[in-house]
C-alpha cells in the first residue's frame, strides 16, 4: 500500500467512485438483458458474450464480466465501425462480425451504437455475443473443413438499426444465413434490447452530472486501471519467461503440428509478449488475428493480476506490448480462414501466455500466491446437429468441456471442473436440459480419476461424458478440439506433471441398446462393446444409432515435485477416487494399506527408491529459455544482490547469476552446473495422455529435469521429439 498522497486526479475520488459505480451498474443491465432474452445456451450457460461502454474515441471504459477475450477485442471492432461507417446518426446500431475488423471470429457478432447527447456523440454503447450458427461449411460455424476465408461463414458489416428503425431486410439476411434462425433472431433482439436498456439509463446520469463530468470519469477509469496495473508490474522481478502450446491437428484430415511460443519480458512498467517463433499461418480456420492474439495474451493479466480488483477496461492494454509477426498463426493475414480462432490459436495464445505469466509470478516475492500454470487449456467443443422425427432441425454446441480442470496453485490443489478463466461463469448445462433440447441420451457424466497432474499440489480433475443419439437415426458431429490428443498442453510447474489431455473417442456399433434393454447401463468402453476410435483434434463424423460419443476436456497441471506431497493427502485422494492406487504408487511413490491408509514404511522405501533412480539419470548442462534477473529493488550499488533470490519453488538465483538447488545448494547452471535429465513416455504423467498412440506419441515425450544431488524435480515438460530447440 502506498503511504504518501498521490498527485490529485482530475475528478475527486469520491465523485469518481460514485459515477464509476453507476456506469458499471448501467453496463451490467446490458448483461442482464442479454442473458434473459437470449435462447442460446452458449450465451446463457457459456457466458460467451460481453458488454461495454466506450469513450467517444472507441476505448472500452467499462467492460462487463462476460467473456474476457471480448474485452480485448470489442474496442478494436468499434473503432473499425467508426472508421468504416457511411453515416453515424442518433439511434443507429451497427453490426459487424468481421474478424478482420476486430470480431474474434465470425460467430462473435458485435453491435454498437453511438449515444448522442446535446447533438454530439458523447460515448458508445455496445456488446458482442457468440451466435450459435452464422453459416459457413460446418454446423456451428467452427469451420473445420474450411481452407480459405470464402469457405468460412460470411462476414457482415452494416447498419442494423437506422435512426431507431430496425431494417428488416438486413435482419432477414443475417438470420437466413444461419442454420438456427430462431436462436440467432432472439440473440439479435437481446443485443438490441441491451443497448436500448443501457442508453435509457445513461441519459438521466448525463442530465444529473453533465457530459463533461461523465466523460472525465470514463477517461479517468482508463488512467486508473493503467496506473494500478503498472504499480503491480513494477513489483515483479526483471527477466524473461517463455510459454509454449502445440496444436495437433488443424482441420479435418490434417494432423500437422503447429505451435505458439511466447517470450514474456518485463520492460520497465510494461509487459512485452513476444510471439516470434510461432508457426506460419495455415490453410485452416484455426488462425488467430492480431486483435485476438492481444486479447488472448491479456487473459492471464486480467485473471491473475487484475483479478476482481483492477477494473477491466482498455487501460490494461496500455501496459502490454504484443509482438506477433505477420503471416503466422498468431497474426494471420487476409484472407486466411479464422472461424475457429477463439478456440483455435487464440486459445493456445492464452495457454502459452498463462504459462509464461505463471513462471514470472513464481519468481516474484509478492505474487507467488497467484501462480497457476494452466487452466482449461483446450476447448473440446463438440457440435451435434440432427433432424428430429417431426422434421425439426436441432443442434447445439455441447457444454461438457467446461468440466475441465485448472492447475495446482503454490499453496493448494487446483480446482476440479474449474470452468474457464476467459469466462468465469461459463458453466456446464444440466444433463436434463441437454436431453430436453437435443435427441441425446447421456450414459454417464463423471469425474475422471488420475486426470489432475501429479505434484506437491495436485492439478484439478476433468469430467468425462458418454452419450448416444436417441429417437433419431443419426446426428452429425463436428468435433473442434483445440488440441491435446497427443501432448496435453496442461502444463504443470516446478516439477508438477501435466494434466490429462483433451480427447474425443467414438465407440462405433456398440451393444448399448441391447444392454439397456437387459437392464444394464454400461460404464466402461469394454462394457459398451463396439470398436473404439480415438478422433484427431478436428473431426467431422456421423453418430449413428448405437454409436457412443465419449470425451473429456483437459485436467490441470501439478505444482512442485509429487514426492513432496504429504502421503496422507494422496491417501485421501485415493479414498475419494481422484487418484488410483496404481498412480499413487507410480506418480507419488506412496504405498497404501488394504484399508486405504498410508503404509509409512513402504512409502519411505518407495520414495527413497524413486529418488535413487532419479540420481542415476544422465546429467547435462542447464538449459532453459527462462531467465530471471534480480528485481531492481534488491540490487545494491554494485548491481549485485546480496541475498540469493528465489527464482522458482526449488531454485535460488545467486549473486553471480548461477542457479542453485534450493534444497541442497547444488550448483545447477554456470560452468560447473549440471542437472539430471531424462525423457519418458507421455503416459507417465497420466493414463489419459495420447490415447490415440497408446500413451507414447510419435511427436512428444515427457522431459524431466531434477537435481543430480538431492533428486528434487525442477521441471516436467512435454517436449517435441527429435526437434532441435529453437
Amino acid at each position, binding site marked *: 500500500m502506498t*503511504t504518501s*498522497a*498521490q498527485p490529485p486526479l482530475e475528478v*475527486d*475520488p*469520491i*465523485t*469518481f*467512485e*460514485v459515477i464509476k*459505480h453507476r456506469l458499471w*451498474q448501467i453496463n*451490467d443491465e446490458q448483461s442482464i438483458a442479454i442473458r*434473459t*432474452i437470449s*435462447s442460446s*445456451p452458449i450465451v446463457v*450457460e457459456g457466458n460467451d458474450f460481453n458488454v461495454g461502454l466506450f469513450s467517444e474515441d472507441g476505448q472500452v471504459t467499462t467492460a462487463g*464480466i462476460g467473456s474476457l477475450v471480448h474485452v480485448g477485442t470489442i474496442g478494436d471492432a468499434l473503432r473499425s465501425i467508426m472508421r468504416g461507417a457511411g453515416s453515424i446518426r442518433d439511434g443507429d446500431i451497427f453490426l459487424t462480425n468481421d474478424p478482420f475488423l476486430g470480431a474474434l471470429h465470425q460467430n462473435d457478432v458485435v453491435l454498437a451504437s453511438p449515444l448522442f447527447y446535446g447533438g454530439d456523440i458523447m460515448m458508445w454503447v455496445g456488446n458482442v455475443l457468440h451466435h450459435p450458427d452464422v453459416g459457413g461449411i460446418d454446423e456451428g460455424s467452427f469451420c473445420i473443413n474450411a481452407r480459405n476465408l470464402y469457405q468460412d461463414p460470411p462476414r457482415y458489416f452494416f447498419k442494423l438499426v437506422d435512426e431507431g428503425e*430496425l431494417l428488416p431486410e438486413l435482419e432477414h439476411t443475417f438470420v437466413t444465413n444461419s442454420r438456427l434462425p*430462431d436462436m440467432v433472431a*432472439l440473440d439479435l*433482439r*437481446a443485443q*438490441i*434490447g441491451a443497448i*436500448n436498456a443501457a442508453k*435509457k*439509463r445513461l441519459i438521466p446520469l448525463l442530465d444529473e452530472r453533465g457530459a463533461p463530468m461523465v466523460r472525465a470519469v470514463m477517461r479517468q477509469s482508463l488512467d*486508473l486501471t493503467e496506473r494500478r496495473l503498472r504499480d503491480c508490474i513494477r513489483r515483479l522481478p526483471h527477466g524473461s519467461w517463455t510459454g509454449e502450446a502445440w496444436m495437433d491437428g488443424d482441420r479435418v484430415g490434417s494432423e500437422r503440428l503447429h505451435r505458439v511460443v511466447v517470450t514474456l519480458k518485463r520492460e520497465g512498467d510494461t509487459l512485452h509478449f513476444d510471439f516470434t517463433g510461432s508457426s506460419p499461418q495455415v490453410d485452416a480456420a484455426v488462425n488467430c488475428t492480431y486483435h485476438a492474439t492481444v486479447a488472448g495474451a491479456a487473459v492471464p493479466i486480467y*485473471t491473475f493480476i487484475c*483479478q*476482481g*480488483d483492477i477494473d477491466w477496461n482498455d487501460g490494461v492494454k496500455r501496459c502490454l506490448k504484443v509482438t506477433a509477426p505477420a503471416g503466422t498463426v498468431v497474426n494471420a493475414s487476409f484472407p486466411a480462414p479464422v472461424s475457429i480462432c477463439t478456440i483455435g490459436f487464440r486459445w493456445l495464445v492464452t495457454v502459452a501466455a498463462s504459462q509464461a505469466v505463471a513462471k514470472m509470478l513464481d519468481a516474484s516475492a509478492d505474487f507467488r500466491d*497467484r501462480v*497457476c500454470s494452466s487452466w482449461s487449456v483446450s476447448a473440446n467443443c463438440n457440435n451435434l446437429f440432427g433432424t428430429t422425427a417431426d422434421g425439426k432441425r436441432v443442434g447445439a454446441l455441447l457444454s461438457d468441456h*467446461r468440466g475441465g480442470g485448472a492447475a495446482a496453485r503454490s499453496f*493448494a490443489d487446483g*480446482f*476440479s*471442473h*474449474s470452468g474457464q478463466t476467459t469466462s*468465469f*461463469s461459463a*458453466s456446464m*448445462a*444440466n*444433463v*436434463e436440459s441437454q436431453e*430436453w*433440447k437435443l435427441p441425446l441420451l*447421456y*450414459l*454417464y*457424466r*463423471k*469425474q475422471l480419476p488420475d486426470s489432475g497432474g501429479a505434484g506437491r499440489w495436485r492439478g484439478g480433475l476433468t469430467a468425462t461424458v458418454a452419450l448416444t443419439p436417441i429417437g433419431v437415426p443419426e446426428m452429425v458431429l463436428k468435433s473442434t478440439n483445440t488440441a491435446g490428443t497427443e501432448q496435453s498442453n496442461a502444463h504443470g510447474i516446478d516439477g508438477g506433471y501435466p494434466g490429462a489431455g483433451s480427447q474425443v473417442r467414438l465407440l462405433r456399433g456398440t451393444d448399448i441398446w441391447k444392454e439397456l434393454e437387459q*437392464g444394464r447401463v454400461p460404464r466402461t468402453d469394454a462394457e459398451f462393446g463396439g470398436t473404439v476410435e480415438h478422433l484427431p483434434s478436428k473431426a467431422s463424423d456421423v453418430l449413428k444409432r448405437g454409436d457412443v460419443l465419449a470425451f473429456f476436456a483437459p485436467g490441470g497441471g501439478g505444482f512442485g515435485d509429487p514426492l513432496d506431497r504429504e502421503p496422507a493427502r494422496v491417501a485421501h485422494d485415493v479414498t*475419494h*477416487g481422484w487418484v488410483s492406487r496404481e498412480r499413487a504408487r507410480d506418480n507419488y511413490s506412496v504405498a497404501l494399506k488394504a484399508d486405504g491408509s498410508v503404509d509409512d514404511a513402504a512409502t519411505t522405501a518407495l520414495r527413497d527408491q524413486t529418488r535413487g533412480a532419479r540420481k542415476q539419470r544422465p546429467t547435462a548442462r542447464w538449459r532453459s529459455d527462462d531467465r530471471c534477473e534480480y528485481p531492481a529493488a534488491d540490487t545494491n550499488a554494485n548491481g549485485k544482490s546480496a541475498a540469493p533470490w528465489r527464482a522458482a519453488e526449488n531454485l535460488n538465483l545467486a549473486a553471480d547469476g548461477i542457479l542453485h538447488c534450493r534444497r541442497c545448494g547444488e550448483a545447477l547452471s554456470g560452468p560447473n552446473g549440471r542437472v539430471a535429465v531424462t525423457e519418458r513416455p507421455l503416459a507417465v504423467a497420466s493414463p489419459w495422455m495420447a490415447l490415440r498412440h497408446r500413451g507414447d506419441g510419435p511427436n512428444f515425450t515427457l522431459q524431466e529435469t531434477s537435481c543430480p544431488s538431492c533428486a528434487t524435480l525442477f521441471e516436467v515438460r512435454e517436449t517435441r521429439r527429435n526437434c532441435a530447440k529453437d
Partner: protein
Amino acid sequence: MQVRRTLGVDTGGTFTDLVEIDSQGRLRFDKAFSTPAAPEQGILNALAALAQSAGIDVETLLAQTERFAHGTTVSTNALIQRRGARVGLIATAGFEDTLIIARGPVGRAGGLPQSKAMDFLHTEPPPPLVPKTMVRGVTERVVAEGTVLVALNEIEARAAIMDLVAAGAESLAVCLLWSFRNPIHERRMREIAAAVAPKLPISLSCEIAPRMGEFERTVTTVVNAFIGPVTERYIGSLQSELAKRGLTRPVQVMKSSGSVMLPEAVAHQAVAVVNSGPIGGLVAARHIGAALGYGKIITADMGGTSFDVGLIVDGVFEEEASPFLDQGLPVHVPTVKVVTIGAGGGSIAWSDGYRLQVGPQSAGAEPGPACYGRGGAEPTVADALVVLGIIDPTTFFGGRYRLDPQKAHDAIATRIAALLGLDPLNAAAGIYEVVTAKMADLIRKVTVESGHDPREFCLLSYGGAGGAHCVDFAAQLGIRRVIVPYAAPVFSALGVALSDIAYRHVRSAPALLEGPTAVATANAVFAELSERAQADMRASGIDPGVVTMRYGFEMRYVGQMNEIPLAWPSGRIAAADLVAMRTAFETLYQQRYGAGTFRRETPLEIISFRAEAVAETAKPRFSALFEGKRPVAAPPRQRKVYMRKSGWIDTAVYAYDALMPERPFHGPAIVERESTTVWLPPGARATLDVYGNLAIEPGQ
C-alpha cells in the same frame, strides 16, 4: 371478553425479537439477546420480558395466544456451519458425481459477490454437503419424455441403502434423472428404504423440488436431508417447551416464500426455512404499506454488515425460482427475492491511494467500528457518521454505548484521508456519499430490472443503520415518500406475525404452448399440484373452508434458460386461453426488456406449473398509538452536521419519543431513537403519524 393474542418471534444473530398483537390491534414488542446454543432460551427470555411489561405472567400470555409464528435461523446456521445430518445420497448410476462436478464453476463461484468470484485463485469451493464417499449409484433410467428406459435394479438399490447406513448415514436423499417427469423409481426407493431402514428420514427429489435440472434438484434434496432432522428436532423441542408453559397452539414456521407452515410439514419442507430471515420484513412492509395506501413498495433493510432490498408491487413479492442459499448451493425453492450488497454500518472503508471504496468487508460486531473503542482500527460507515455529526456518540443506543469520536476521526484520517490527500472531514463525507450512492444504484438496479420506475414507489426503511442514508438515496432516486415504520426495530418479527399459512407446489412439465399437449398437461398438473397443496393443509389441520387456491406457470421462448412467472386465475386452462397466455407473456416480457424485444414467430414453452393453497391469517387493524394521549413535545436540541456540498449546517435534533404526531418538521434535522438515527437532509419534510410511523418527503 377473553384477550386473544398473536405472537411473532424472530431469532436473529444478535437479538431475538418478539412482537405481540392483541385482538384490539395493540402492538407491543420486546427483545432479548439470542442464545445460539439453545435458541429456545432466547425466546423464553423475550417472552418473559414482554409479559412483564404487559403486566402478566408468561403462562397467561401463552395461554391467550391464538397464533404463534416463528422465524428461525437454526436451519440456515446448520447449513452454513455444516452441522446437519450425515447424508447418504442415491443417484442414477453414472451420475453419482453431479453434486461435486457442480456444473463446473457454479459450485465454486455461484452465489458469490463478483469481486470474490473473480479472485480466481483464492476463492475455495465450499465444503461438500455429501462427501463423495457417501454417494451411491443405482442402475435405472427414465428418459426426457418420462418413460422408463431401464427399470430400477432393486437389488442394487437395497444394497446401496444398507451400505450407506453402514457408513453412518443419518438421513437419505434420493435424486434420479427425470424423476420430476416420472417419479416411479424414487417412490420405489422410499419403499425399499422403509423396509431396509425404517427409521431413516428420506428426502425424494420428486417431492422436494420436482423441477428440471438435476444439479439444482440434487442440491435442494440434499439440503433438505441435511437440515431436516435438525430443524424438526428444534421445532419439536420449542413446541414442547412452550406447551409446558401453556401454549396450546402449534408453532408456525416462517419460510423463504413469505408464508408460514405448520410443524407437520417441517420434515419435508425444511429447505424452505433456510434464509427466511430477511423475508419477514417484506411481509411487514406489505402490510404496513397497504394500510397506508401504497401499492408499490421498495424495502430497504440496512444492518451492520449488509443492505437488503426487496420489491412489492400490488401486494405481490418479486420472486426467484432458483436462488443460491449459499456459495455454490442453488436450490429449486421459489423464494421472495431480496438482493443484498455488503454495505452496512460496519462496512469498512478503504483506499489504495487512488480510490475510496466502502465494503464489502465489515468490521462486524467484534471488533466493530473504530469508534466502538474495542480495538477496531479500520474506519467504517458508522465512524464516518460520527465524524459528520449524524450519530451522537453520547446518545448512541440510548446512551448505553459511549462512542469514541477521536478514534473514528483518527481511523479516517490515517487510513483514508492521508492516502487520498483529503482532509478527514471530507474523507468522512466521501465515505457517506460512496456508500449511499451504492445503495441508490442497487435500488435502481432492482426496480429497473423488473421494468419499474423507482419514482413510483414508496420506500420502507428499517434496520438499525438505514435511517442515516434512506432519505438521501431516496432523493437521488426521485422517490417521493419514505416511511420509517414504528415497528422498525422488530420488523421481521412483525412480518412473521402477519404471515399467512401457505403450501406451494411447483413441478416442471414442459410443453409447447401452442403444441398438442399443453392444455391436457396443464390441467392434469394443476390438478395434481392442487391436491398436494390441499393435502398439506389437511395434514396441518386447517379447515378446507378457509383455504383459497392460487395458480401460475412459468413460460419462456423455446430454448431460453430463464422463465417468466405468470399468475393464472384458475387451475384450468381451455384451448381458447392460449392466445391470452401468449399475450400476457409478451406484455410482461416487453415491460421488462423493452418494446420490440418479443418475437411472435418464436414458439413458447411452458416449463413449470404451480399451485398454492393459502389460509389467510387474521390481520389486526393497528390501533392508533397516540389517540387521546399525545406526548408532550420537547424542543429540539441543536448540533452541526457536515456534508460536502453544504459544509457544516445547524441541525435540529429530535427525540423520537418526544415527537408530536401529525406536526411536520423540516430538514436539516435528525430524529434519534434508541435503535436508529434518521437523517433528514435540507429540503426533506417529515411527519410522525398516529401509528408512530415517520413519513418523509425527501425533497428535490
